[in-house]
């Protein structure tokens, strides 16, 4: 067990890199918090080393002292005592100074975080559901509002103001590479500012226990160049192409006439469900079921065939379908790009 401990520590280190990293400095907010973390880390490390060195010195000196004056208790020299006093006062003063310094650093970071917003940020609404994320991009022109699920696209170099809501229980949005976490509370509206600096693909995770499938409630965050983002946004505004080909057409008919359309929406079709992820461009997303499976035709079919096997307890029922129907649905879902 004791031998395993360092191994576990190494595992913790895995949290410091990659697409879901507390050490990531990929956004203004993350960088600010990271900077503060650095100040704390190096200051406290220095203090720690100093204390350890002092302890070692005291041990050495104490042993020597005992050897020199074995058996006799004597008053230390007056001069030595003064040095000790000054040392103690200096030590207390340094502690107070360091604490004050850290407080000021925290305060400055906090202020910088509050001021990190933009005059015209991208307005986004993120709504937590058990167990998936709904994302709505706001626009003054209502017909340019984009509704998607389980993916968040952001342009690098532009601030985004995220409004957070929940329809059922408390969730928490945490994109560690970009910013700290913020809770989504039913009946309340919270907000979070992001300002990604570098392009990249990140993973966000629900950070407040929200039920059976809390662990499988992830959000794919893609930070791309403004041009790429604009391209993605415009593509979201266009309904998916009408299905062509036998299997996809049959799948479309199944989608519209069977249980799917009761809860899901696909742009440009009568399916307008609100309580489940919008599937208009599901095949263009990296993952399905809130980061549970990579988006492939096989995975889409596996998910539809038995959602409860993939993510037990989620609200999508197992719809009785024949093999042929399942294949047709898979073919159709794959066209939703």
């Amino acid at each position, binding site marked *: 067990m004791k031998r395993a401990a360092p191994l576990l520590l190494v595992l913790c280190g895995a949290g410091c890199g990659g697409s879901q990293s507390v050490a990531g400095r990929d956004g203004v907010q993350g960088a600010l918090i990271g900077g503060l973390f650095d100040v704390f880390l190096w200051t406290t490390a220095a203090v720690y080393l100093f204390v350890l060195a002092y302890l070692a010195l005291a041990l050495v000196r104490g042993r020597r002292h005992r050897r020199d004056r074995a058996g006799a208790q004597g008053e230390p020299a007056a001069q030595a005592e003064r040095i000790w006093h000054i040392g103690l006062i200096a030590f207390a003063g340094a502690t107070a100074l360091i604490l004050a310094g850290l407080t000021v650093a925290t305060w400055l970071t906090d202020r910088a975080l509050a001021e990190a917003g933009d005059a015209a940020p991208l307005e986004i609404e993120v709504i937590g559901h058990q167990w998936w994320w709904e994302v709505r991009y706001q626009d003054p022109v209502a017909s340019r509002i984009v509704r998607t699920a389980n993916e968040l696209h952001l342009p690098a170099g532009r601030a985004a103001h995220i409004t957070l809501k929940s329809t059922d229980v408390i969730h928490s949005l945490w994109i560690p590479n970009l910013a700290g976490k913020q809770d989504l509370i039913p009946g309340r509206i919270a907000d979070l500012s992001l300002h990604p600096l570098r392009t990249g693909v990140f993973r966000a995770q629900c950070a407040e226990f929200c039920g*059976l499938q809390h662990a499988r409630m992830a959000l794919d965050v893609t930070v791309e160049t403004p041009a790429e983002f604009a391209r993605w946004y415009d593509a979201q505004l266009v309904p998916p192409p009408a299905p062509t080909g036998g299997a996809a057409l049959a799948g479309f008919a199944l989608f519209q006439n*069977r*249980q799917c359309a*009761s*809860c899901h929406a696909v742009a440009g079709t009568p399916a307008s469900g609100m309580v489940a992820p919008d599937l208009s461009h599901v095949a263009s997303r990296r993952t399905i079921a809130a980061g549970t499976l990579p988006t492939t035709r096989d995975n889409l079919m596996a998910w539809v065939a038995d959602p409860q096997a993939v993510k037990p307890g989620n*609200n999508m029922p*197992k719809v*009785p379908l024949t093999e042929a129907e399942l294949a047709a649905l898979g073919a159709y879902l794959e066209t939703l790009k």
Partner: protein
Amino acid sequence: MSSRSPASLLLLLLPVALGACDRETRDYRSRALQSTDRPAAFGGNAYHLAQGQRLYAWMNCAGCHAHGGGGMGPPLRDDEWRYGGRIDQLVATILDGRPNGMPAFRDKITEDQAWQLATYVRSMSARTRQDMLAGRADEPANVEPPVLDERKPVRRVTPGQDDATEE
């Protein structure tokens, strides 16, 4: 012996208390549908009742039946049933619809969802176990959670009776 016997008896009874640790299973694979006694398998299960309550909102039932008091559709809190109030009759009503306006939900929900919905609808008028009911109502108007009481008979007054005091 006499002094130890109550203690040992208690010790013997202790495992019985473990029975309380048996939680109701969340039957999200809908094994109840395979049960030979579906009314009991669905009707006595809090998970199915809660799922039915969620579906009641999701499938727009409240738009017509309100939260049991009715509107475009008849009330569901009373014990009057046009097409039968047994749970299997309710499932048939939900899945296949009825001629005077109840739409068919077959292919809009699955069969086990229909049973869950019927379980919730039954709980509006039947005396469902208190521990099965949801702790709070999900609807935004903060209506009281499902009722345990049956509907009070409505006293009707013919307008003519009031007339006596007039003119």
